[in-house]
């Protein structure tokens, strides 16, 4: 009895529920605002070319795959996609391999002069790429690496190794000392301790670094813009930029090219969202 009168006095919705609903309304509005530009790309890509000309940015007013076909063939986005893969996969592999080796050394293998070397690596985190991008251009030219895939792969690798080394060092530092001592008592060599005992324990760190580096190198714009000037090895980002300059009125194929550029990134992110966000968080905190 008392319980029911108490209930009757309460408003239809408890204040807690009201604030919770309000919260969701606010968040949904923010989410829609966040997603509009991505929706716009998809919508413009899937229009008929005639519709794009009349009404380029009205949402989903017609359907055709013609823009995708045009971007893929005439717009050379199939070449750009291949170049993006050829640049991103080797440079990501190199960053992870080199950073893991160096991170292990700086965490676990002391020798005279190691601290000084570490300072040089950390300096790379502090100095913006801008500062030395111009001299690097002339250096690559004199080495015959300008406008070559190996040259761009090496530069992309170099942009990631300072952070990568710092990142992997933190993972190796967290491992307990007893692990390597007991392996040493069992007669394992230092190389075996590294490859058989330690490496398997930093798999999550290497995974996060792989995803992080892949995204950074896939999205990199300045390196191909500067060091692949002729366009033979142009990746998606630089290709997309050149496309805007060349024929700015071709909105349809441009949208399709944008979609081809961002689709791998979005798919990767949705599949590995936990690792990606976790990688960015721990990367920021450990760095």
């Amino acid at each position, binding site marked *: 009895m008392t319980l029911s009168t108490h209930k009757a006095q309460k408003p239809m919705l408890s204040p807690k529920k009201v604030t919770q609903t309000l*919260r*969701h309304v606010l*968040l949904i509005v923010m*989410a829609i605002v*966040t*997603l*509009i*530009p991505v929706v*716009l*790309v998809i919508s413009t890509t899937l229009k008929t070319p005639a519709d794009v000309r009349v*009404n*380029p*940015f009205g949402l989903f007013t017609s359907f055709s795959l013609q823009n995708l076909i045009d971007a893929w063939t005439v717009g050379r986005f199939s070449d750009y996609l291949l170049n993006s893969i050829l640049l991103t996969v080797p440079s990501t592999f190199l960053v992870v391999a*080199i950073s893991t*080796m*160096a991170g292990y*050394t700086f965490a676990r*293998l*002391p*020798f005279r002069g190691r601290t000084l*070397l570490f300072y*040089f690596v950390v300096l*790379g985190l502090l*100095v*913006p*790429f*801008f*500062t030395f991008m*111009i*001299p*690097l251009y002339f*250096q690559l030219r004199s080495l015959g690496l300008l406008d070559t895939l190996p040259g761009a792969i*090496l530069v992309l*690798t*170099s942009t990631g*190794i300072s952070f990568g*080394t710092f990142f992997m060092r933190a993972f190796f530092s967290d491992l307990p000392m007893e692990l390597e001592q007991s392996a040493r008592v069992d007669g394992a060599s*230092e*190389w075996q301790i*590294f490859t058989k005992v330690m490496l398997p324990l930093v798999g999550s760190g290497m995974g996060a670094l792989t995803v992080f580096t892949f995204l950074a190198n*896939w*999205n990199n714009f*300045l390196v191909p813009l500067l060091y692949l000037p002729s366009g033979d090895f142009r990746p998606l*980002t630089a290709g*997309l*930029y050149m496309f805007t300059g060349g024929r700015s009125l071709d909105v349809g194929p441009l949208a399709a090219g*944008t979609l081809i*550029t*961002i689709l791998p*990134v*979005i798919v990767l*992110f*949705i599949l590995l*969202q936990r690792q*990606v*966000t976790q990688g*960015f*968080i721990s990367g*920021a*905190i450990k760095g």
Partner: protein
Amino acid sequence: MSITSRSLAPTVTRRAQARLGVVLVIPVMIMVVVFFLIPLVNALYFSVVDFNGINPNPPFIGLANFERLFTDPKVWAALSNNLIWIVVGTISPMVIGLLVAMLLWSVQRGSVIYRVVFFLPYILPGVAIGIVWGWIYDPVNGLLNQILRAVGLGDLARGWLGEPDVALYAVLLTAIWAGTGFAIVIFLSALRNVDVELVDAARIDGANSPQRLWHIILPQIMPVFIMVLTLTLVGGFSVFDIIFIMTGGGPAGATDVLGTYAYSNAFQLNNIGYGTTLALLITVLSVPIAIVLNRLQRKLSLQGTSA
């Protein structure tokens, strides 16, 4: 016997460790020397010679590039754009990020979906972001002007990227859209570590929500707060991609920052020495801030762990 082997083993181990350490560190050091230290030293050299990109023995000109830098009105214009970018582009994502993270804090259902959506812009390539926002700002068919006209604010409709007064802020809004998700996700993970009992105790003691935020929550997430501040501040000095793509520094230099001005000097006007000097200025300005904030962050995290 056992004593000698015990005292010998660490030396042997230490030697073996040092040997492997040197081998494992060789690749990173080669990369750092060839692709970072040598070009960095060359940057200093380029700033004191008159290099045209061809002459192998460019004439020494001393500090002429630095003198030019201090008297060039375009440098001051670019620098003030950098400052606007840093102030607005740092405060907005941090404030919005904190507010949205607070909203998300107590949400259980759908929290993963919100996180994915909000973080998505942060991982997209700047070129794609620049192109799409260029459409949104399109003077004729752009979404922004269409919305303004639809709600009766048609007078405000304009060519957002074509007018010197608003172009920088239009690009800034795009950068805020792209960068806020990072702040949201980082703040959310920091909030998850906040001592909820303390917050509840403060609520019982009658602290209202701004008071709880200021006195209880903010101090606990301060190290993360400073870390995000460092990243966005330092990024503000070397901003390039999004401005280069959306406006190229125009109209008439209205959106030029140090990065785009250095680029156009070196690669479009062939003033290689001067472009390099401008790029050095970016480092001179951003590195000390990074170091100071990093120290502060470390101090705060140490206090946090000892408390």
